[in-house]
């Protein structure tokens, strides 16, 4: 699984972009999006997914079940 951003809730504050250890987040068309291939759910970096912890809007950075769970290397 990777994380994804619920576009309709994103305030485009960019806070998550700077916190992501994998540079998986960028702005696209006014809101921010996560590139699933780059997202490691922060495993190996931090205890909690950084985008979830910093986002000012609850339930905006959520698990994307379309992707298999990340395996720590």
């Amino acid at each position: 699984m990777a994380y994804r951003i619920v576009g309709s809730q994103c305030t485009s504050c960019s806070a998550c972009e700077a916190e992501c250890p994998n540079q998986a987040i960028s702005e696209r068309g006014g809101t921010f999006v996560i590139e699933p291939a780059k997202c490691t759910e922060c495993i190996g970096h931090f205890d909690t997914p950084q985008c979830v912890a910093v986002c000012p809007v609850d339930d905006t950075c959520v698990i994307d079940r379309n992707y298999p769970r990340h395996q720590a290397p």
Partner: protein
Amino acid sequence: MDSTGHLETDASGAGVAMDAIMRQVAEHKGCGTHGGAGKASCGSGAGENDLPAEIWEKVKNHPCYSEEAHHHYARMHVAVAPACNIQCNYCNRKYDCANESRPGVVSEKLTPEQAAKKVLAVASTIPQMTVLGIAGPGDPLANPAKTFKTFELISKSAPDIKLCLSTNGLALPDHVDTIARYNVDHVTITINMVDPEIGAKIYPWIFWNHKRIEGVEAARILTERQLRGLEMLTERGILCKVNSVMIPGVNDKHLVEVNRAVKSRGAFLHNIMPLISAPEHGTVFGLNGQRGPTARELKALQDECEGEMNMMRHCRQCRADAVGLLGEDRSEEFTTDKVMAMEVNYDLESRKAYQDAVESGRQAKVAAKREELETLAGESSDIRILVAVATKGSGLINEHFGHAKEFQIYELSTSGAKFVGHRRVDLYCQGGFGDEDALETVIRAINDCHAVFVARIGGCPKSDLAKAGIAAVDEFAHEFIEKSAIAWFRAYLEKVKSGEVAHQARGDAAIRQGALLATAE
């Protein structure tokens, strides 16, 4: 000295004692740029002789730091910092930071390069623009790369512009050295509490060391970081103002303690602002029905803290992309599209010449006030009243009642005219004063005033104001505010003395709660 003076009851001694007191008061109130004698006080802002020379040099042209300068100089904010590292209960992050700005406002976000171009465009168009601030829309220090890049670009292309920034303080200790390196001379920290138990009611969480921390623990870290940041800045000689949001029932009484804590750490100005919490802003406080203070509650708290240190009362809680004199907003003239299309010719010389002209006008105003104040010498009365003034700046009564977006409030007593605040009415006057509701709203906003000074006013609103007990005064059109207010007050005292009018206390007034959504008329 106590400028209200204790009135001698002994008849023969009274004249002499009052004369001496009034002379000192006159000097004391002589605010601004005249050199030498007397202790200056600008009502809410600090005056020339209250401060060490090098600090006065820094603040004298800063509209946010000197009440006196805010009539003459303009500031602008650039919205380059959208991210934030804490959550406040009075903020909804769809909008600008409510610490520093009006809630419910959305600013146009810029890159550092766009911001630098905009500053040059504005400074070339508005020569009295002397200050650039970064105040959001989030926290400038949660966006350090963008914030400092902007400062770097501006200090290269417009070296005469002062830089300032506003922060919630969480990241401040990490950036103090960079702030010093970029020659930022003013920093504003929003400090709403020094007690973590109270903080937990204001801040649900902070993002700290890669973790979200909640409750009392979060507030404890925040207050430690804020106070340490404040100490580090003042140690390096960087001026620090503290903003506090007054939240009735949560931190209102506690702010007296905050005032002491920040004063002892070297903050040179404290700005207590009212909580603005309309439900439609979608903030936690707004949705919970947490109310903001009334005008009288706010003034009482500001008065209580004033014994301790300089209070700022002219803060307009500006947008993160505000442009212009305080109380005016010209940001619509400088949208990104317009700015990028502008040919900018930055002329240091002509800006300087313009500012010199502003300076002499300002001195004329100070002299006029001093002269008029002398006529009050020998008067003694316990009467203290508030009056509202419609002004476009330059310290003059030069705005039409129906066009005023805000009124400035002065307190009049035998010690003179003192600026004590302002009341916004802009949200309501969009339809002009043709409709009844608009006028009613203005009356509510200045209901604690005995008179309103205007450049012009129509017959209808004038008589409605009179019915509400507020005298509309237009005979001082285009004259200096303080001088006129003192002259009017002297006449008022005469009338009370002769029995022509009976002095009556006024009621409380409302602080506008709505958001500023439309930027231009």
